């Protein structure tokens, strides 16, 4: 709730914040664990049942095509077929059965990706019954998986789709030092979360620094930032031992296998590099501590989330190859968020850090294009060179990288999955609206056609649309 009269209640509960399927020729950048080096029993775990919807080919022509791959094509065309981008360019030959979309005056971008969402795990309406994002019963809950909380009928999902979002990372909240596994999901209407699981995407792990875990566990600990650090270290020391035991057994198959531990299984996969670490962390000095934690245990932090002070250590982050997932302008809601500035994204870009604009908000996710525009122009006004292509990558190719799916989605290039948005205007304008959203070639949203404006079960009969009356 953004409303002022709930401010005192809604407050720092901003704790909220925070495979399978056949797709030949595309590989996630992070290889899925081979059976031989996984600690888990050799079995399928909650496999994706995602299936592409059959659709006729689509040709969008005469539009400004923003590829997020270095190119902007005026009066360009793009052909989508069988869920793939077939060709992009000034002239594109389309098959006769293609649906032709006149893109005159329109802009076309890759589908927008939000690498920090709590859709489905903190569903609307925001009641206790729908509060499934923080297993705040223990500071380390690496054993929980966000997908097991995810509610596909969350009415916030169609709102995000209408904002051009095609893929999200649904994360556990930030109450815990280690909050659990994330889920990378195709944002499509579905009955089950399995039908939304992005085929081939690696898992992520949510970790959190600073004020939130300290506040939540104040009475039992950790109650300090040094307590936070000790908590992560203790967990990864256990994980090292667990990994060793399983590696040994996997090699020899001598005697009984070690007993399975869900928490350590996930952490061991982090140590093996199969699960990507997404770390909620605001302060520059704390991010430096977390990078050292990664060095101590030999894992990389993929992206710092929120990272409002990342501009202070952009050089360090660039050296480490860790990305930053930031807001355009959030600040001031707690002490560790006091130093947020508009130019954070641009300063990181300038230093060579992979920048992602994320939402952490069911409202903000609907206009990541605007937030990227805000951050880009703020940077430009401050004399920091940021191109439109770079800023577009903040909400497409870079979050795709953070999620380990950048070889599959994130740009408009032949062979990529046909996740495409048609905008009414330059997407960095406050007046731009997504007109059409294609997810894997499926027209999941069309602003001008009620037949392509999916509604969740929740909305039926109780949420009015234009023209309806009670």
């Amino acid at each position, binding site marked *: 709730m953004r409303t002022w009269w709930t401010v005192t209640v809604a407050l720092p509960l901003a704790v909220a914040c925070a495979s399978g399927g056949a797709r030949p020729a595309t590989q996630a950048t992070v290889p899925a664990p081979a059976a031989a080096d996984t600690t888990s029993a050799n079995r399928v775990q909650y496999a994706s049942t995602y299936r592409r919807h059959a659709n006729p080919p689509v040709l969008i022509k005469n539009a400004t095509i923003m590829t997020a791959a270095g190119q902007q094509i005026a009066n360009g065309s793009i052909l989508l077929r069988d869920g793939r981008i077939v060709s992009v360019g000034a002239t594109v030959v389309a098959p006769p059965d293609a649906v032709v979309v006149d893109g005159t005056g329109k802009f076309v971008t890759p589908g927008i990706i939000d690498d920090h969402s709590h859709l489905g795990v903190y569903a609307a309406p925001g009641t206790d019954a729908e509060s499934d994002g923080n297993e705040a019963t223990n500071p380390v809950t690496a054993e929980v998986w966000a997908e097991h909380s995810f509610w596909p009928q969350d009415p916030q999902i169609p709102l995000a789709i209408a904002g051009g979002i095609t893929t999200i990372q649904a994360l556990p909240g930030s109450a815990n030092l280690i909050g659990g596994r994330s889920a990378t999901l195709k944002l499509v209407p579905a009955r089950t979360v399995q039908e939304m699981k992005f085929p081939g995407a690696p898992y992520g792990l949510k970790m959190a620094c600073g004020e939130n875990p300290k506040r939540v566990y104040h009475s039992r600990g950790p109650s300090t930032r040094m307590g936070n650090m000790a908590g992560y270290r203790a967990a990864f020391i256990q994980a090292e031992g667990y990994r060793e035991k399983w590696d040994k057994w996997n090699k020899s198959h001598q005697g009984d296998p070690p007993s399975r531990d869900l928490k350590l299984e996930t952490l061991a996969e982090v140590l093996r590099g199969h699960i990507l670490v997404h770390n909620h962390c605001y302060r520059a000095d704390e991010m430096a501590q977390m990078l050292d934690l990664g060095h101590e245990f030999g894992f990389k932090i993929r992206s710092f989330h929120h990272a409002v002070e990342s501009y202070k250590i952009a050089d360090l982050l660039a050296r480490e190859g860790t990305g930053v997932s930031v807001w355009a302008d959030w600040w001031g809601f707690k002490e560790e968020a006091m130093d947020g500035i508009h130019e954070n994204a641009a300063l990181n870009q300038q230093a060579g850090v992979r920048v992602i604009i994320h939402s952490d908000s069911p409202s903000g996710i609907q206009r990541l294009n605007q937030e990227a525009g805000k951050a880009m122009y703020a940077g430009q006004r401050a004399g920091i060179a940021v191109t439109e292509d770079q800023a577009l990558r903040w909400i497409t190719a870079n979050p795709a990288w953070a999620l380990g799916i950048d070889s599959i989605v994130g740009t408009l290039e032949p062979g990529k999955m046909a996740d495409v948005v048609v905008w009414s205007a330059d997407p960095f*304008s406050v*007046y731009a609206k997504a007109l059409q959203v294609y997810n894997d070639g499926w027209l999941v949203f069309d602003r001008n056609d009620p037949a392509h404006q999916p509604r969740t079960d929740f909305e039926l009969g109780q949420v009015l649309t234009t023209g309806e009356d009670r």
Partner: protein
Amino acid sequence: MIALILAQTIAITGGTVYPVSGPKLEYATVLIRDGKIAAVGTNVTVPADATRIDATGKWVTPGFIDGGGQMGLVEISAVPGTRDGSLQGDTIAAAFNVAEGVNPASQVIPVTRVEGITTTLATPSGNLVSGQAVLLDLAGATIEEMTVKAPAAVVADFSENGKDEAGGTRAGIVERLRGVFRDALEYERRKTDFSRAQMQPLGARAADLEALLPVLHGQLPLIAIANRRSDIETALRLAREFKLRLVIGSAQEAWEIAPEIAAAGVPVLVEPLDNIPSYDALGVRYENAALLAKAGVKIVLMETDTHNSRNLKQEAGNAVSYGLSWDQALRAITLSPAEVFGVADRYGSLESGKVANVVVWSGDPFEFTTAVEHVIIRGKEIPLKSRQTELLERYRKLPPSY
């Protein structure tokens, strides 16, 4: 006032001027003297001693007014010691005027005003009657210097939050308010009896009843926070009953009964980017502002996230995207709030005699491409500096030189 003595004569020349009270003027001059707007037009003589601002190719508007939030009442949301917007332990907190809790040294103020927001309503929260909202200019070393109008309105909560203070039911809200309103009028008639303790116990403290009298006499608006359509209708009903000058705040389902609200002549405070359904407002949607305006309701836009009050511009731009006209959106953050909060004789438009809150923009103020080039509050140019611009300068090159 010292601020006025030091005030400059400023001539903003050559810009496209949006007076709001009338059509836009090309190549026009806004002349500012002694804190007031001295002249606006295409044929204004610029005095020799005036500081000139060349606004050729620029847009000139009144400073924007945010109709919501808690400016000066919250520094760091998570730090209770810095929060002064809510009175504890008084369900009918009508006498609670937030003004004396305002912090003129708040860092949020410069962050906000350098983005063209020059005036905000600082609003109490919590309780059934939350207290008195005040209208503040975002400049001035003291509370007195900042104050535009105090109180500007009394706030009551008709939403699901309000019922917690009213026995846990929506009917309790209106039952309690009716009782308190009647008691206030009774108290007014029988103050002598009251002081002699010859009255039955009243529904609120004497100070709170006293504070409700200007509302009950139609001198001060009552902002009723209400989202569900039926709650809005309840507020309208109560306002008819007691002849209140009602304003609906938040009003998420107001679009469903826009003609009824228009007919009642009740203005509405809207946050255009509200659209997440809750059980308090399953019908919340982006088109609210536009549908209300279309029905003839006077709307005022808000950005209630105090730290990002500057995003009032983005709220306005999105309201335009979802059907409000650009001119309506500009009016909803300038002249309309001035009218609703009772200061339209001094604020809200670029007209001779009004307080000189003026902003010069590089282009359309709602667009992200646009830079704020000059901010003038009460006739004084404000340096475009804040703690955030200082952080930028410190860390622009790494490592920083401390």
